[in-house]
Each structure stands twice: as C-alpha cells, then as structure tokens.
C-alpha cells in the first residue's frame, strides 16, 4: 500500500463512505460470469455442504449435500456441480478463431474464456480443495465416481491456478475486485467480508454505513458469505436439521431434505443478492483499456488447457517438480510486473500511487534538446533528444532506468540520465530512445515539448522466455529425493473413509 491509498482509506474513515481508489476496473467482467457461492462444513477440509450457482441473478441453482460426512453424497454433489461448470465451460468453447500470428503454440483461440466469481478468497480456497479432492478420482474400480468428477477437479484446479497469476480474470473473489476500486475506512481483513465491504460502498436503503457495518457482522442479519457457516447457525439450526434428515424414515426423508435445503437456501440467498449487486456496481466502472489484452492472454491459456484436456491430459500434480516450480515462479513474477505496469499506465490513480513512493514521476518539461543526435557504437547516427522534467515527486529511480510514458505514444521509450534535487522539486533529465520513427528527425509529437506535462514509469520491458533444463536433466541440487510417479495411483485409491 502506498501513501496515496493510505490517504484514501483515511478519507473514507473521515467521510464514513467508500472512496474511489482507481479510475478504472482493471479486471474484465464477463457478460455472463458463473457465480458460485460455496459453503463447506466446519471441521473437515474439502467437505462441501452446499453451493449456490448460476450465470443469472434470477436463476440460481442450489446444490446441497444433505449428509456432508457421507462421501458418496459428496461426489454426487461434485458431479452435479461438474455438470453446471462443464456446461458453462462448453458455452465458452462454442466459437474458435485464428489468433494473432505472433508466437508459436496455439494457432487459434476460443473467442471467450470462463469467468467464475466467488464471494471472497475463502471461496477460492474452497474450490481449490474441491478440485484437489476430485481430480485424482477414478471412474472405475473400487469407489468409482462419475466421469465428470475428475474433469471438474482438473478444471477447478486450472481456474484456481490461474487465479494465482496477477491480471487474470478467470476466477476472482468479488471482494478483491471491489477492494481494488474502492477504499473503505476499515481494515483489509474486514474488507474480505463481502457484506462489510458492500456496507461501505452501497449500504442498504435507509441505513447509514455504521448501521450497515454492524448488520454485516451479525450472522442473524447477514449470514456469512462462506465458505464457513456461522458456528451458531451450525449449532442451533444445521446440526438438528441434518440429524432429522439422517434419522428420518423413508416417508419423512423427502420432507426433512426439503427443510434442510430451505434452511441452507436462506443462508445463501443474501450473499447471492449481494454478489449480483456487487457485479452491477462493478459494471458501472469503466474497464481499463489494457484489460482487453489481458483477456486475450486468458483466452490463450484457456484454449491451451482445453486442448490439453481434450488430448487426455493428466490431472495437475500435487506438488510442482523443480523445473515446473521454477517455471511457475518465473511466470507469476512476470505477470505481476506486467500487471502493475499496465495498471499504472492506464490509470492515473494507480500512477499516483507509484509516484507517491518514488517509483514513477510526472511533471512539466522545463528544458528540451529535441535536435540532439548521437553516434552509436555501430557508427550510426540516431536522434537522442534530451528532456528535463521538473517534478515534485520523490523519485527514486536510478540513472539508466528504462521508462515508458502514459502521456506519450505507446512506442515511446526513454532512459533516465540524471536526477538533480532542486529545493523541494527534482530535475529529472531523460534521453528519448524510442518511438521517434526511422529518420534522423523525430516524428512530430514523439518528443515532449517545453511546457508539456509528462509522466514516466519504469518499463517492465520485454524479457525472453527463460530457458529451463528438461525434466530429466534436473541439477542434482534440485533433484527430488523420491520418485513420485505412482502419485496418481496412490491418490486415486485414497480411502473412502465413511467409517465415522
């Protein structure tokens, strides 16, 4: 967090209302996201209790595991959820077109990519657990599951892994999306409670923020958005209802199940409504220009994974092998750097954040040497104009840092030559090195003129895809001690464990 964002939180606290933190919504918001509100049973990981699922506010589908400790019912739930998720994924795979010719690999992309929205980071974790329980399951032998169960497991794992990568939009917690755009006067921890966060942004009619916040933390008024249910709900309502269902004779079982479903539906409905309210609020925020390019990358990775699955791909490993881990880390770091630069480039608010900590600067051009020409090592004469910017920002960028500028054409590139403090301002001299065209005279508009306002931030740059050794040539320092080829077999024969 920077001082600008901290200040926004202070303003929110003073005004008792959420304040804007960005100009844009940096995440793509699909026209038809799949909303999943998962609930799990306390005390046991990967024990789903229920989920409310759907792509439209009006038609939620309620899935309930009437006896969460029964693993047959758990996988029946997974199969039912799998049906919905796979329908949705197939919906995104209806149309495929040739992509840009650049690069190798996927030659054509699906024109759409899935977007699953859950209420909070805990929802992502619940899907991760469900994905892990399902993806190694076998469809034959002892304890077989429906075909769709391992497929759901693999797709959920794919979505969860994509969510770890900055800038993707295939699985997102709504609290995160809201928190990127609005600052509240409460802590980051409390912002993970969807109802609390919404209390700041759009309190219910007739309530002020303080009252709405108090309601948001009262499980009787606002049931938690999951995945955990309120302990008091478990104790006074859920446990007796499950017991009634479990002990009901066949004639009464249907009534007991209906009662249980209704009970759980009442817990889920308020969150369901909040989810769609949040989505419509987010639709009201303009999407950042560069979100489109990130969506294209989502589509590429969605297409690649879909093809891998269609070719009978294996479930994702439990733990990365050394090379895979290195690859993943490199990809995640890269994505984070790119996403941060994208946001700062698009969004003056984010740029201000970076400026306040000296990672970017903006100011007025006070001196320019537009006609400067230098001779390169290769004996070529090239334009290298010098421009001096006076800024009040506390710049900390070292000489030689490569820069991009949101206030100049996209191909504009510059290097920091020197930074000289001048009373409470700094004079930053930069050398323009790119985006001026081929000739000796820079194209018009490619060099900032005296008196012009410009902003610069570091260029995350182009980096070659790092080369890692093959999987069978892992250096001994990183070689795994044990061979885990039987991992798949072992996990699939996991005890069913209905013994409690």
């Amino acid at each position, binding site marked *: 967090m920077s001082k600008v964002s*901290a*200040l926004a939180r202070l303003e929110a606290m003073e005004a008792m209302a959420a304040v804007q933190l960005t100009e844009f919504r940096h995440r793509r918001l699909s026209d038809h996201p799949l909303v999943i509100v998962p609930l799990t049973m306390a*005390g*046991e*990981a990967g024990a789903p209790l229920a989920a409310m699922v759907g792509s439209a506010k009006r038609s939620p589908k309620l899935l309930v595991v009437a006896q969460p400790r029964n693993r047959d019912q758990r996988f029946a739930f997974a199969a039912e959820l799998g049906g919905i998720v796979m329908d949705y994924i197939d919906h995104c795979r209806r149309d495929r077109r040739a992509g840009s010719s650049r690069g190798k690999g996927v030659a054509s992309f699906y024109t759409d990519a899935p977007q699953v929205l859950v209420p909070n980071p805990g929802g992502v974790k619940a899907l991760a657990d469900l994905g892990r329980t399902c993806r190694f399951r076998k469809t034959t032998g002892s304890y077989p599951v429906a075909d769709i169960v391992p497929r759901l497991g693999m797709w959920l794992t794919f979505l969860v892994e994509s969510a770890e990568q900055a800038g993707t939009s295939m699985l997102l917690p709504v609290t995160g999306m809201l928190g990127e755009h609005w600052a509240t006067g409460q802590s980051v921890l409390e912002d993970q409670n969807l109802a609390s966060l919404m209390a700041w942004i759009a309190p219910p009619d007739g309530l002020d923020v303080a009252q709405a916040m108090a309601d948001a933390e009262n499980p009787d008024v606002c049931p938690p958005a999951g995945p955990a249910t309120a*302990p008091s709900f478990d*104790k006074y309502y859920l*446990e007796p209802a499950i017991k009634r269902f479990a002990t009901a004779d066949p004639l009464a079982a249907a009534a007991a199940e209906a009662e249980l479903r209704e009970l759980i539906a009442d817990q889920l409905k308020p969150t369901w409504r909040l989810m769609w309210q949040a989505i419509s609020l987010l639709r009201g925020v303009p999407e950042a220009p560069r979100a489109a390019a990130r969506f294209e990358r989502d589509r590429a990775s969605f297409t690649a994974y879909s093809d891998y699955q269609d070719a009978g791909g294996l479930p994702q490993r439990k733990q990365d092998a050394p090379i895979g881990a290195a690859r993943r880390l490199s990809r995640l770091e890269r994505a984070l750097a790119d996403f941060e630069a994208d946001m700062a480039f698009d969004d003056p608010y984010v740029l201000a954040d970076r400026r306040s900590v000296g990672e970017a600067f903006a100011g007025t051009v006070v001196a320019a040497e537009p006609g400067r020409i230098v001779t390169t090592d290769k004996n070529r004469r090239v334009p290298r104009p010098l421009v001096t910017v006076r800024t009040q920002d506390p710049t900390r960028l070292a000489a030689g840092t490569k820069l991009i500028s949101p206030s100049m054409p996209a191909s504009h590139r510059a290097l920091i030559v020197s930074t000289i403090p001048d009373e409470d301002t700094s004079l930053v001299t930069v050398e323009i090195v790119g985006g001026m065209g081929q000739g000796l005279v820079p194209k018009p508009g490619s060099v900032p003129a005296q008196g012009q306002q410009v902003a610069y931030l570091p260029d995350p740059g182009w980096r070659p895809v790092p080369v890692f050794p093959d999987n069978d040539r892992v250096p001994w320092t990183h070689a795994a001690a044990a061979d885990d080829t039987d991992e798949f077999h072992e996990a699939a024969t996991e005890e069913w464990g209905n013994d409690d």
Partner: protein
Amino acid sequence: MKAAVDARLDVLRGSALRLTYSARSLAALENNPRCTLRAVLDASGSNKTDIAKHAGYELPFGQSPFAIARGNSFEAMVKANGCAELLRVLREILQLSLPEVGYQDLNDVGGDGRSEIRHARTRQLLVRAARGLGDGTLFDHPMLLLRVGGHAAFLEPDLVAFRVGDRFHVVEIKSFPIIDGRADPAQVRAATTQACAYIIALRAMLAEAGIGPEAVSETIVLVAPRDFTNRPAAAFVDARKQVATLTRQLARIERIGDLLDLLPDGLTFAIADEAGLPRPAGELVEALDQVPATYRPDCLNHCEMAFYCRARARDGGSLDVLGPVVREQLGGIDTVTMALGLARGKLRPNDEQVEIAASLRHAARLRAELRSTAGTPGAAA
C-alpha cells in the same frame, strides 16, 4: 507484595468465578502481547466473554459442533486399540523406533477423574519413566500443572510420547488436514504454541524431581488427517522459538503488578454488584476505558473483547482501525485527524513528523489533482 497484587486482581474480577488459564488461553498470549487490557483481564481470571456481552459488544465466537465432533472422532480414531494408528504413523512416517510400547491411560485414575489426582499420578509415572523405570512409552492425556501468576493451571496434552530418541515428545492431535504435505500455517502455529505450554509445564514438573529440561524435546509431533481422508499423517514441528516466546510471556504475567500500578484504585470489571444486581453497562465500559488497549484488526479472530476495542479505536479516530498495512505507511501518527490535518497542511508537524508530513502533503496533492481531472474523458490518455 504478591498478596497485594492478588487482592488487586480479585477486585478487578469482582464476584465472578475465577477462570484459570488453559493451553488455549496461554497460546493466545502470543497474539497480542502488548495489550494491557487483555493482560489484566487474563491475569485476573475475568470472563472476557461475559464482560464483552455485558458491555454490549458480544462477539459471535464459538466453535461449530461439527468441528468439535470431527476433532473428537479423529482423536478417538488415532488412539483406538492402544494407539495402534498413532504407532503406525510414528513408526512408518516419522521412522521412529519405538521398540516396546507401554500405553498408559491417564484420563482417570481408577475411575477418579479429578485433576489433582490425575496430576499426581502423571507426575509419578513420568518421573519414573524419565529415570528409566517403568515401561511407559505413550501417556494418554496426562495432567500437567503450570503455575501462572501464582495460580495453578491444569493442562492436558493429547499425548506425551517417551523414548523418541530417549526424550519426551509432546504429541498434538489436530483435525485440520495436512494436504499434500502442507497444512494451514496459522493453524500449525496455534497448535505449536499450545504444545509449547505443555513443554514448559512438563519441564517444570520434571525440574521439581531434579530432572533437567533436556529430557523434554522442543520438537513436537503433529498428528493430523492426511489429505481428505480419516487416516492420520504426522510431522515434526520445531517449537524452539515459540517455547522461548511463551516463556517470556509467562514471565511478564509474573510482573502484572507493574501494569496494575498504572491503573486507578478501585477499578473493577465486575458485571454485578455484591448483591448480584447487574451493573449498568455504561459503568462497565467506563471501567474498561481506563485500561490501555492495543487493538489490531486480527484481534477479531481471537479475542473476545475485539468489538469493544474496535469501537473504542473508532471513537478515538485511531489508525489502529485500519490495521498495520496503513499504520506502517504513517509512522509516528496515531489518529485520522492528525494524519489528515498534516496532509492538508492544517496542522504543524512536530520535529519527528516533518518527513512523514511532507510525503503526506505530496500524496494529498496527488489525490487532489486526480479528483479535479476525474470523470473527464481521456484523463488517462
């Protein structure tokens, strides 16, 4: 001196029953050690749940019956048939050589479940074992005793295993899963801290018999469900650092008198008067207000007083409300009024605030610039 402190603590608690420390509340000491309110309430054995509720700040805490049932059934399964599953895990997964197994059930002594009796029996058996006598290797639910601030607190580890490398090992049986070799770090930490209380109590007990601290290992054995099954997995957890931390926290409790000296005379958190009539909530809040509290948002996860402290921080416009992420950006500033005053140039910074004030003013200028251009099309171009 000690008596004076105790009398003082009794006054603070009022007529309510004294709560003793449990492993859980001792482990909680680690969470927010600087909080005076918490220290004073705990040391006086006050019931924080009742106090918060009476003051009008009840926190919907508690454990789900499903979690409790799962915890109990997992522990029962691990210990069934003389700890057969547990031994399998200790031998196979941790590759421990437990040549002979002598299982000792200390849940009661000949049907007598009183803590004192169980503690006496525990001491007898464990001291014998430490001296190489007897055939005990697994001690189920021994009863340990730790003196905290001069008061006895009985602690009951799930299990103590002996002769894992000839040292006692505390075994914690927990029902959160170890999935693919990984468990939730927060839960592992809480389990480890709880086990630290047992290590310290075990050492204290052996020390009385002249046995040195090296007889108790600072590595605990965590036993938890493997992946999504009901079968156990086990792992060693190094608890050295937390043993040291908890030892330090316990030493602080001994010095509770220093904290009490700073509080006004006659202060009490009683929720009823001597006649048993409820005390006006406003009066209780006033009493609580007298004691410094260190609120942090994560108190909401573990302290019964959190709603009260948060309301107090909000009323005072304290930056504590926003949490450490914001606080660390605003070092040396405590309140919203001051931070915004400095940012808007309406307050003069003191010598230590000059630097932070300058960067706040800069941030405020940036935000003002944004607001003036917000909404204009192409503002981002």
